[in-house]
């Protein structure tokens, strides 16, 4: 190989090695470095031949590796060492103050976005993450029963004997208590005062020890204050005590519950958050606690009516707790159910409490994160646009010797400052935001009362703002530092730079994609909510008013007393002015509780399989009075509803269409007999379900029995009126008081309120997601507007030339629009996997809409395309004002 050839190879090698150095060093010194190496290489070749030359090459490689990385690290090093932070901060502040519109718009966007994020974060943190305020709350578990093969019931209540067995199990189970609803709950301070309805829970005496809570006044239940014949004692919550007038000397006094005297033992701490979890429906609020009047170990093992709560030994792994509980379950199964495979299983107290709210909250949290990401990208593109406006200034000051570290620092400071302020303002806005959320949140949302922003959350939001600002600012900072000086000077000499254009367009694409992901999720959630609103729950909610009136055995000892009283109430309510009908049932639609589930059989029904276990059906029993089916507006499919007169010797029943189909496929169920509570019911009618659980889907099969026949005492009375339903309350209260002053009217609600409460969670999350999605769309549109408008300005000269050469205005307009449309199109394409992933995430909260519902997704995409193209069109129209002759003359 000739010397010349070797020298050419050497030079290429040295030029390649230059790549290790940062671009500005390469611009300034690159040629000189190559020259020096070339000289060295030439000398090596002439004095020592190829071996010496190769050694120079290798040497140059190590040199470039070492010094290249050193030079690249230099900005970071001099960032630390040098600089006048105070002056930079002052400059940044002054620059922001000089552009108040920019600062206000950016801060406004950040405040709104981070505020919404903070609200969602607060809700998620308080509901899902923060532990319950009990001692070692992670060691508390609810225990439920899985009926396995016997019954289609995966989460059933326990029997008293199960709780006794758990309490005696020992090992990792330190203690177990049973919890049960107290039937009745007509409370008064003295016998002669106004009665009020309160929610009372019956429990084992160890409940407060198990939770690790001590009362603020008085003492908790003693071990022996339980069982038949024990002195009646009651523990009040702080809130009930307040409602009663906050008497500090209340401990030791007697109060009345269902007319019986109870001695007040204690008042619990303020805000004691305990609620009683139930196998079905939301956890139940508690106003007061009393203890069991039975011995749990002596109750009927088949009579499952308790929630069980256990505490595991501190720090026991959940698997070990599950194993211990399952072992107890197997023993109980052997003893009481002759080993038919019923199981007991534990669920963490918190997990059990929030299980219903979890899917929606996770969706909201994900939407919040996408929004935060969107804010970052948006801020980055805004800051980049701002940096690009100043690129001439950058170029000149760098040419004059200002180091690029200063430029980076200024940009980062600007972003950090904006982010910090936005975070602080967002946290502040979230103080009101969380209040608004609590106001609209579903009443049964767990931990609802705890949702408020605290210092920790505010700090986290401010920190997020700062990080977001710095992250956003690092984009223009990197651009400014990486763009080589010569290209900066060159491009700012020719109007408008190019380098930042690509980055900005990439960010627009990202924003379009992110906002489309949010929009598609929002669209699906809205469609699902709309399906819920239009769903027919099986009754007509308009014009229905309901109240609960209890009939405690203490006041009405015999069944006929109670029935007489209930007859009078129903008749009086039905005769109120403006009321067209009254009925009553022991449970209302959409407010299911587990208390009235039972198994029935219909011997001889054509749908039976012959397998005794499979022919027993778990049904929801609804005890109703005459008039209920008509007043609720339920649909009668066959036979008749209950009538005023009760036939003697026959217990009437109405079944729903599910049950009719199951037992009488293609046959007439009327007149058939159902085995129920060791007695026989005769089917007189078939109805469509008035849904107990969800508005959009049928629940378990329903069996309507006559309330009078089976001694159901607390009843919900339903009246249909042409008046404003809620306006009936004073008259209803007066009427009930006239009939019997000892009982109280509880839970006054309209049926529309009940429907609304059921839909509240979906409504709240739909509203939040839509707000997020629209916010994201706005951000994307703003970004696009900026890019297209900048592009028109930059290309004015080129467009003028095109016009002068004969292109007409519409053609040029299309040219500019195409640029925007391309960005939108790429964004939409990139969003597709995101939409799919988001769809999988929200699948659980969607009702009646597939996560890939083509109509919704197409509509949302078209909507986005329309909005974004409109935002392109507005700035693009400016090309129509270009007067080529004039413009070119100016140039």
């Amino acid at each position, binding site marked *: 190989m000739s010397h010349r050839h070797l020298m050419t190879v050497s030079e290429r090698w040295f030029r390649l090695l230059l790549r290790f150095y940062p671009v500005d*060093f390469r611009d300034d010194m690159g040629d*000189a*470095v190559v*020259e020096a190496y070339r000289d060295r290489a030439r000398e090596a070749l002439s004095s020592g031949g190829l071996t010496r030359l190769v050694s120079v090459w290798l040497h140059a490689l190590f040199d470039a590796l070492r*010094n290249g990385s050193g030079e690249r690290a230099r900005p970071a090093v001099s960032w630390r060492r040098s600089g006048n932070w105070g002056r930079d901060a002052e400059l940044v502040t002054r620059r922001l103050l000089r552009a108040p519109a920019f600062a206000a718009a950016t801060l406004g966007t950040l405040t709104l976005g981070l505020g919404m994020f903070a609200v969602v974060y607060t809700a998620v943190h308080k509901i899902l993450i923060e532990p319950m305020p009990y001692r070692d709350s992670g060691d508390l578990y609810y225990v439920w029963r899985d009926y396995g093969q016997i019954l289609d019931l995966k989460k059933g209540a326990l029997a008293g004997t199960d709780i006794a067995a758990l309490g005696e199990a020992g090992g990792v189970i330190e203690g177990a208590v049973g919890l049960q609803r107290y039937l009745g709950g007509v409370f008064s301070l003295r016998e002669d005062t106004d009665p009020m309805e309160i929610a009372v829970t019956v429990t084992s005496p160890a409940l407060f020890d198990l939770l690790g809570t001590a009362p603020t006044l008085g003492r908790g239940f003693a071990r022996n204050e339980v069982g038949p014949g024990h002195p009646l004692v009651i523990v009040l919550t702080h809130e009930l005590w307040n409602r009663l007038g906050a008497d500090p000397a209340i401990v030791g006094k007697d109060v009345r519950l269902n007319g019986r005297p109870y001695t007040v033992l204690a008042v619990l701490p303020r805000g004691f958050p305990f609620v009683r979890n139930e196998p079905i429906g939301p956890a139940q609020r508690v106003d007061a606690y009393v203890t069991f009047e039975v011995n749990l170990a002596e109750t009927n093992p088949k009579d499952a009516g308790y929630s069980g709560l256990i505490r595991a030994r501190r720090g026991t792994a959940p698997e070990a707790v599950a194993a211990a509980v399952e072992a107890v379950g197997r023993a109980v199964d052997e003893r009481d159910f002759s080993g038919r495979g019923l199981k007991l299983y534990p669920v963490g107290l918190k997990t059990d409490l929030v299980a219903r709210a979890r899917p929606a909250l996770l969706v909201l949290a994900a939407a919040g994160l996408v929004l935060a990401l969107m804010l970052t990208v948006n801020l980055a593109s805004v800051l980049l646009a701002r940096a690009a406006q100043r690129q001439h200034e950058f170029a000149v000051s760098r040419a004059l*010797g200002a180091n690029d570290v200063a430029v980076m620092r200024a940009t980062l400071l600007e972003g950090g400052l904006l982010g910090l302020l936005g975070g602080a303002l967002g946290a502040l806005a979230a103080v009101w935001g969380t209040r608004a959320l609590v106001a609209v949140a579903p009443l049964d949302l767990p931990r609802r009362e705890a949702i408020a922003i605290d210092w920790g959350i505010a700090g986290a939001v401010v920190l997020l703002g700062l990080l977001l600002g710095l992250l956003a600012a690092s984009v223009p900072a990197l651009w400014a530092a990486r763009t080589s000086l010569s290209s900066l000077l060159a491009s700012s000499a020719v109007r408008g730079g190019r380098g930042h254009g690509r980055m900005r367009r990439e960010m627009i694409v990202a924003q379009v994609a992110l906002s489309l992901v949010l929009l598609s999720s929002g669209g699906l959630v809205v469609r699902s909510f709309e399906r819920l609103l239009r769903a027919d729950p099986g009754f007509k909610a308009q014009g229905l008013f309901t109240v609960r009136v209890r009939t405690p055995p203490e006041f009405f000892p015999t069944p006929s007393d109670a029935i007489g009283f209930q007859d009078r109430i129903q008749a009086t309510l039905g005769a109120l002015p403006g009321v067209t009908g009254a009925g009553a049932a022991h449970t209302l639609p959409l407010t299911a509780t587990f208390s009235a589930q039972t198994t029935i059989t219909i011997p001889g029904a054509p749908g039976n399989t012959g397998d005794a276990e499979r022919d027993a059906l778990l049904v929801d029993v609804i005890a109703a009075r005459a008039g209920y089916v008509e007043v609720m507006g339920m649909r009668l499919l066959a036979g008749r509803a209950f009538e005023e007169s009760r036939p003697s010797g026959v217990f009437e029943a109405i079944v729903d269409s599910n049950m009719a189909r199951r037992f009488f496929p293609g046959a007439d169920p009327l007149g058939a007999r159902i085995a129920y509570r060791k007695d026989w019911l005769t089917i007189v009618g078939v109805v469509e379900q008035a849904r107990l659980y969800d508005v959009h889907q049928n629940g378990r099969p329903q069996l309507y029995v006559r309330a009078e026949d089976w001694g159901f005492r607390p009843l919900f009375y339903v009246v249909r009126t042409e008046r404003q339903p809620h306006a009936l309350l004073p008259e209803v209260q007066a009427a009930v008081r006239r009939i019997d002053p000892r009982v109280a009217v509880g839970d006054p609600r309209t049926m529309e309120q009940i429907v609304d409460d059921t839909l509240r969670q979906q409504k709240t999350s739909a509203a939040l997601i839509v707000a997020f999605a629209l916010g994201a769309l706005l951000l994307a549109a703003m970004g696009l507007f900026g890019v297209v408008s900048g592009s028109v300005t930059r290309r004015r000269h080129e467009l003028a030339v095109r016009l002068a050469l004969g292109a007409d205005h519409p053609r040029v307009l299309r040219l500019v629009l195409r640029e925007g449309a391309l960005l939108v199109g790429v964004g939409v394409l990139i969003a597709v996997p995101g939409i799919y992933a988001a769809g999988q995430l929200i699948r659980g909260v969607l009702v009646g809409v597939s996560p890939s519902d083509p109509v919704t997704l197409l509509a949302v995409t078209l909507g986005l395309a329309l909005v974004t193209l409109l935002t392109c069109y507005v700035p693009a129209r400016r090309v129509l004002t270009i007067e080529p002759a004039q413009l070119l003359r100016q140039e």
Partner: protein
Amino acid sequence: MDRARRRTDERPALRPVEFHILLSLAAGERHGYGIIQDIEARGDTAVPDVGTMYRALARMLENGLIEAAARRPAPDAGDERRNYYRITDAGRRAAKTEARRLEMLMRAARIGGLLPKNTK
């Protein structure tokens, strides 16, 4: 700019490679490889790498210790053009300050007995 100047005034010591560069340029304009050859000729055991030297040159250009001279062909290498560098007044001052500082250190070392008393 003022920060850069302040830094040269405050700079406590020049790095050996910077001192060598200033020493070479004090004798007249040089191109990069020329400076390396000078250092080799002075018999210094640690001849800097090309990259190390150019990074130093870049810093010194920034700090105003040296400046770029006209690009021209080197006398011994045909018509290939080279980047030449020239020392500035500030550079000359910095080199002198550094030499004096080293001299004072040497004297201190002799008085302290670290070096023999009368070595030339």
